[in-house]
């Protein structure tokens, strides 16, 4: 049995807007819109999976359902044999942005998951360890707004990793970062995955990220979305799309699948 099982997940929501999303959109206010249509997936322990799909297809919704934030859906999510009914501190979610509590310093944010530890000496050691891991030593007492976007993201990663979660959910974790910082934080996530070997499920719309990072790629179709393709990537890391022809071909194939025919 797989570590995470997603069985027949269907998610509908009621359209509350009066305007149409696009000229061809027939949906009216009050109408039921299907976001996820009978999704079945399995994830292995320690696997790094990237979920790709066109924007608005419901990939974030799917991740939030798996994480237990959204309980209004049909179907089942089973993690390690237990049905998921709510968020859990063993499965930490890294948000698209603003996931750090802005009124707490980096240190206090990282402490959130460890706040109930009895031994304060051990707790402080652990907090420092994870702050060092993401190379934020020296910034322990800074507030989030005093950090750059990349540092904020790293601080959030430290907070997530400090609780040694079984699963890490990453919802477009590189959004809003400049290109260079994006690559740096991405590298860090890959290293962390190699280092701790925990299950990671990441939603992204950057195809390159998925190709560089993932053990497996899942592609969702447009709304109502279903699983369009899942593909194992047996390439060693670090990966380079320009040097590895198979990887480059796969990229072109995925771009085509998502409706982009020319890739520079």
């Amino acid at each position, binding site marked *: 049995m797989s570590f995470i099982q997603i069985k027949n997940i269907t998610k509908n929501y009621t359209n509350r807007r009066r305007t149409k999303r696009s000229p061809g959109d027939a949906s009216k206010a009050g109408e039921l819109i299907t976001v996820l249509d009978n999704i079945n997936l399995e994830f292995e322990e320690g696997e790094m999976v990237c979920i790709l799909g066109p924007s608005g297809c419901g990939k974030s919704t799917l991740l939030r359902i798996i*994480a237990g*934030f959204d309980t209004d859906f049909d179907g089942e999510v089973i993690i390690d044999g237990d049905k998921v009914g*709510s*968020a*859990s*501190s063993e*499965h*930490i*979610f890294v*948000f698209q942005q*603003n*996931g750090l*509590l*802005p*009124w*707490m310093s980096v240190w206090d944010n990282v402490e*959130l*998951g460890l*706040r109930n530890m009895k031994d304060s000496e051990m707790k402080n050691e652990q907090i420092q360890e994870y702050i060092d891991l993401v190379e934020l030593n020296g910034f322990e007492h800074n*507030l*989030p*707004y005093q950090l750059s976007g990349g540092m904020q993201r790293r601080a959030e990663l430290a907070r997530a990793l400090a*609780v040694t979660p079984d699963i890490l959910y990453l919802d477009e974790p590189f959004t809003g970062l400049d290109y260079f910082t994006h690559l740096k934080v991405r590298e860090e996530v890959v290293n962390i995955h190699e280092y701790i070997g925990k299950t990671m499920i990441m939603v992204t719309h950057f195809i390159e990220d998925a190709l560089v990072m993932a053990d497996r790629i899942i592609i969702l179709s447009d709304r109502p979305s279903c699983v369009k393709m899942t593909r194992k990537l047996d390439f060693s890391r670090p990966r380079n799309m320009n040097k590895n022809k198979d990887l480059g071909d796969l990229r072109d194939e995925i771009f085509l699948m998502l409706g982009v025919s020319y890739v520079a």
Partner: protein
Amino acid sequence: MYKASLLNEKFAILNKSLWLPIISVVLVIALWGAISQLGGLGKHVFPGPATVLLAFNELFNNGELIKHSVASLYRVTVGFYLAIFLGIPLGIVLGLNRTLSDMVDPVVQFLRPISPLAWIPLAMLWFGIGDKPAIFLIFLSSFFSLTMATTVAVKSINPIYFQVAANFNFNRAELLTKIIIPAITPDVITALRLTVAVAWLVVVAAEMIAVQSGLGYLILDSRNALRMDYVMVGMIVIGWIGLSLDLIMQKFSRVKWTAH
């Protein structure tokens, strides 16, 4: 060239944001003096700055001014604190509970635009004479706005913070102290700043009825004695205290976790 730059430097020492207000205050006092001298209304009807300064000295030295200021500040403080301790918790509850807020919100919305002064007859009937009706009016002037502002602030907390709380298994107390209260603090402080200004406006009006002390009473009593110089002293002190209250609130309103 050299002289000009030296002159500029001299002016730079006197910070622009400091001397511009001073100039305007001096101008206003000069204008006031000129009108009272040349307006033809007479010293008793339109006293000039010198007369008012003498009256201020008199009222300050015989302790009347301090007594009345303290009385007004006492009422504002009590009424305002009552509004804080009832309005903010109620606002938090309403912000978190959709059903309750749908029920209570229309009532608050309806009562809020009724001027606290319209409550004067009822306040006197219910609370009699003395501090109580005035405090009640101050309370009313702040309570509804504070409740509403808090409700809105809670409702507009970024849902991500609640998800973080759920993800790290916060209990109710932690949710309140680690998420809700810090998240609404900037908005609530802004609301406090606005309401304390309104409360200060209302106390003067409230003191014109039913009490024997306070700056409002000082003004009304001086009018009855036809001492317009005392009336003006009262007005100026009200302005000073109002300004000070605002400056104090402004100091508090610099919350450290936002960039601006």
